[in-house]
């Protein structure tokens, strides 16, 4: 039993300071990403979410260059990018892809420049790895800062929950009910930018998409309720993050070379596996006709189409 325990949790896992910090921050950012992610998937804005990751990359690499913490850059430029996409026309479905693509291209170009300058300034290649693929064991931002941003993003989404959902179902119905559809959409994009910025810290700007979309898409396979989808997405995201941290920690002991493998890889691998596991049964369930109780003859006597 003890052997199994030490096989799963290699020595020092729970006593290591960086590991504990990683578990707390990783879990928190996974929750924020999952909550934002469910709306992202439902609104069909996965591409915008990914694009904000690239904007974050530019912000993070730029922040390093001028001596700020990466998180400042991730969130700062992400929020500006979200505003820019809204201005260019993300509120119109047709304009969305265009606006997103333009912002994404500009962001990757900036990232290339900033990372080059970062590398030549500090003569290390660590910057690229840290910005693009995360550095969960060496987070430079303090916990209170991260908690504040998490609370901001979660609070904003909770505030606009109902009008955002109504606008997602039909922006026409929402507008007719007096919902300020564009303002609600912008508020959501800003919350999304913060969520992406936070997950850029843990899994990296490029991989933030995985933490945003994966748990949400997995949860949508499993339930027909919005609230439950949120809870399941959070559980999936946190579980994947913690499992990834554990696997990365253990990986140091796997070979004789004693080289720990990147956390981001393990987190994304677990998310991907969870998605595949839920996709198959969901596909089968969708092929089944909707569940009905004992046959009921209703007033109009019509027939349900599947």
């Amino acid at each position, binding site marked *: 039993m003890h052997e199994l325990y030490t096989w799963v949790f290699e020595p020092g896992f729970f006593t290591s300071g960086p590991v504990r910090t990683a578990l707390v921050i990783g879990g928190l950012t996974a929750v924020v990403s999952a909550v934002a992610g*469910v709306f992202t*998937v*439902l609104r*069909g804005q996965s591409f915008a979410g990914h694009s904000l990751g690239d904007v974050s990359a530019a912000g993070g690499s730029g922040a390093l260059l001028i001596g700020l913490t990466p998180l400042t850059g991730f969130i700062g430029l992400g929020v500006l990018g979200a505003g820019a996409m809204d201005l260019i026309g993300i509120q119109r479905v047709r304009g969305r892809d265009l606006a997103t693509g333009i912002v994404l291209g500009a962001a990757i170009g900036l990232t290339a420049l900033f990372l080059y300058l970062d590398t030549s300034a500090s003569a290390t290649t660590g910057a690229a790895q840290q910005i693009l693929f995360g550095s969960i064991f060496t987070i430079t931002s303090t916990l209170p800062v991260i908690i504040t941003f998490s609370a901001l993003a979660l609070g904003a989404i*909770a*505030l*606009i*929950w*109902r*009008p955002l*959902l*109504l606008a*997602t*179902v*039909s922006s*026409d*119905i*929402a*507008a*007719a*009910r*007096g*919902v300020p559809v564009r303002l609600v959409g912008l508020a959501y994009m800003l919350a999304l930018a913060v969520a992406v910025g936070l997950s850029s810290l843990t899994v990296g700007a490029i991989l933030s998409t995985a933490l945003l979309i994966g748990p949400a898409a997995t*949860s*949508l396979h499993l*339930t*027909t*309720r*919005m*609230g*439950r*989808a949120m809870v399941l997405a959070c559980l999936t995201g946190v579980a994947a993050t913690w499992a990834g941290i554990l696997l990365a920690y253990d990986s140091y002991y796997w070979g004789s070379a004693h080289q720990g493998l990147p956390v981001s890889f393990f987190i994304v691998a677990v998310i991907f596996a969870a998605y595949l596991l839920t996709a198959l049964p969901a596909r089968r369930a*969708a092929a089944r006709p*909707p*569940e*009905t*109780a004992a046959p*009921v003859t*209703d*007033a*109009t006597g*019509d027939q*349900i*189409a*599947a």
Partner: protein
Amino acid sequence: MTEHAPASAPATDVLDVAGVSVSLSGRQILDDVSFAVGAGQFTGLIGPNGAGKTTLLRVILGLQRASAGTVALAGQPRSRRDSSVGYVPQKVLLDPDMPMRARDLVALGADGHRFGVPIRSRARRDAVAQMLHAVDADRFADARVGLLSGGEQQRVLIAQALISQPKLLLLDEPLANLDIRSGQEIVSLLARIAAEQQVAVLLSAHEMNPLLPVMDRVVYLAGGRAASGPADQVIRADVLSSLYGYHVDVLHVHGRVLVVAGPGAGQDADLAAAPAGETG
């Protein structure tokens, strides 16, 4: 409340559209459109594709600014936030992935415009169940909305629009993507609701025949102009010819009404303004 309306005063119309004109990027979409809808009346907004039906509904909803004219609801100029109008738009694409049951969508109709997360309550649950029952949607109340058939989705959307207890229900081409039988069911459902709940229904359609048995009044829209009144006074060759600007015939065939372009009108007539009613 009661001292506001003396018993002797005539009943105020639920909707009063007066002289509404709309131009979009230099094109005149609506030209001096006027009509009224009384309480509990079933009105068909009929016209060919491109006649301006959707634009007119959007003006009534306050989603589109009119370049001239006024819209009054229950005698008052319409304000931005007005829950006295229920709305079922033309194309609501309900994503099969949306984690939402029929009853969740109806609940969103009740409080979706409010900030915050949904708060469960017995009253809210009962109101939703009652509304689902009113549109014969009990059977699929717990099914994912995105997986329902077109007719079933239409019922849920109607319940969603009615739960805020509007005095006026606007539906934009609700029969467009339904087979004939589902269409008839929706029409008789709406007629029943209009009578039972005293909700005025204004429904747009390019095909009037399914509506003829239930319509109290017709607003016929062609070339941006409108004629309104009881069906037998509006669906006439002389009235419609003056709307279209060229001669059209109104044919009665086996209880169905067909509006067809008269001789010589075909070549000159704008395709977008081709008369409605000859198909289906």
